[in-house]
């Protein structure tokens, strides 16, 4: 437990020692601003909620989370520090947990720093802040799933670019599996059961209610499960293939 904390602390500090965290947070804030106010018709809708803000989060995470996670294991492999790390008296589980917690904390920080949007909203109208808090929670949960996938991809290769592209690819599959295009494609020939299964893996579907501030148990469990499964996959990769 303590060991995990030490690793998480180091990783967290590393995000800020290199400009990664600053760049990430800046881009996250700028893009979420653009999406909310320009693309999402925040004002024109004339409603006191943050739906346009949260609706774009899956698409933001799709590119930004792989960017923040691509370094996590690839860099350890490239620079050889993985040998140092894995010969310290720690388990691979502790290393993975530490890295995950650190990156997830950066994501939380980025989310918290969007507070001006919330302040604006409260200035303009009288939103239900409970709903907004629930949506924030849901968004953070979903970012954990993106993160677990991206870190597993990073564990596969010492090349950050490849890790980044692989992560986007897999995340993209999870995001779009519920979208109209994919479902239409399946509809023509697949049995309804298959269709439901494909749709049930979709981040969009599970986040839909969350963005509106409804934290349903099955959506929460879904994201937790996806996160756990991909963390476990990453663990297997690291344990099977420590060198190069």
């Amino acid at each position, binding site marked *: 437990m*303590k060991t995990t904390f*030490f690793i998480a602390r180091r990783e967290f500090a590393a995000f800020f*020692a290199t400009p990664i965290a600053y760049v990430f947070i800046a881009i996250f804030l700028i893009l979420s601003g653009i999406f909310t106010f320009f693309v999402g018709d925040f004002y024109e809708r004339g409603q006191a909620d943050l739906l346009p803000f949260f609706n774009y989060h899956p698409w933001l995470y799709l590119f930004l989370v792989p960017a923040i996670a691509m370094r996590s294991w690839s860099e350890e492999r490239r620079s*050889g*520090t993985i*040998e140092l790390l894995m010969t*310290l008296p720690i388990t691979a589980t502790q290393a993975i947990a530490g890295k995950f917690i650190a990156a997830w904390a950066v994501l939380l920080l980025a989310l918290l720093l969007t507070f001006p949007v919330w302040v604006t909203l409260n200035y303009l109208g009288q939103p239900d802040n409970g709903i907004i808090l629930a949506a924030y929670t849901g968004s953070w949960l979903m970012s954990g799933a993106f993160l677990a996938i991206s870190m597993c991809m990073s564990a596969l290769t010492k090349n950050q670019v490849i890790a980044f592209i692989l992560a986007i690819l897999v995340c993209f599959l999870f995001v779009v599996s519920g979208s109209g295009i994919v479902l239409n494609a399946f509809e023509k020939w697949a049995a309804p059961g298959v269709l439901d299964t494909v749709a049930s893996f979709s981040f969009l579907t599970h986040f839909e209610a969350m963005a509106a501030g409804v934290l349903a148990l099955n959506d929460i469990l879904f994201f937790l499960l996806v996160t756990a499964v991909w963390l476990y996959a990453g663990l297997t990769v690291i344990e099977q293939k*420590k*060198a190069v």
Partner: protein
Amino acid sequence: MISVKNLSKSFGSFVAVNDLSFDVNPGDIVGFLGPNGAGKSTTMKMLTGFLTPTSGYVRIDGRRVNKHTTRLQKQIGYLPEGAPAYEEMTVYQFLHFIADVRGMAKKEKMAGLTQVIEQLELYDVLDQSIETLSKGFKRRVGLAQAIIHNPQILILDEPTDGLDPNQKQHVRNLITSLSKDKLVIISTHILEEVSAVCNRAMIIADGVKKFDGTPLQLQQQSRYYQAVTLKLSYAADITGLLEIEGVDDMHVDKKTGEVTLFPATGQFILGPVTEYIHHYKLPVDRLHVDQGRLEDVFMQITS
């Protein structure tokens, strides 16, 4: 005690370490030698639990490294090849992190930090980030990291690579002073280092053990061990030198005019040779006894 039995490691169809067996006991300072690609680093990676052997095993105090990895890693201090470190951290942060992860309590940690900073003379670079350090300093940080918890087992992959002559000497002394009752394995390409630091030399080539003995035994394998070389001030009849008892062979270097007398195995010829020189009043300018040329032995053993 480290016990290695039939250890092998393959990468695909390539066999990097091939059926290696040896024991290392407390007090042993093993110099691990071998040409590039011999499998030294690969062996060390298996000793420290980083790589899983393809077959065979490593046991430390009777426990298999691949089963009790974390527990055994606590006792090991390891400098991986190339001294990898988290580049964005400062030296102080890095050593701090290592001490934390190694579970050192606050007091112990501070004592350990103070000690390694002094031992490796890192005081001036403490707040410098590791990526900006020179190669030698990086190596010293790697060494500091390996010894900070005063481990019972020290495994150092090329600890003096990239150090200046003063630091080389300094680090050799440090290893000697640290090694009391410990198990130390260092790999190196500097053959004299083995004679200077180690009490045991092990040579591997192509993943196979070729020699395991004391540095002295290694030197004794040299044709030059106890060979006597003389330089005459002017030409004189030297054919008689070959007749001296114990002298096996003679070689005259045409360029320098130096005469080298090789002893038969196990013979010491310095006494008889000097006697002969006195008796026949040979005009000898210089004379020296060789301690054995390790480069020759190394080449002979590994090729």
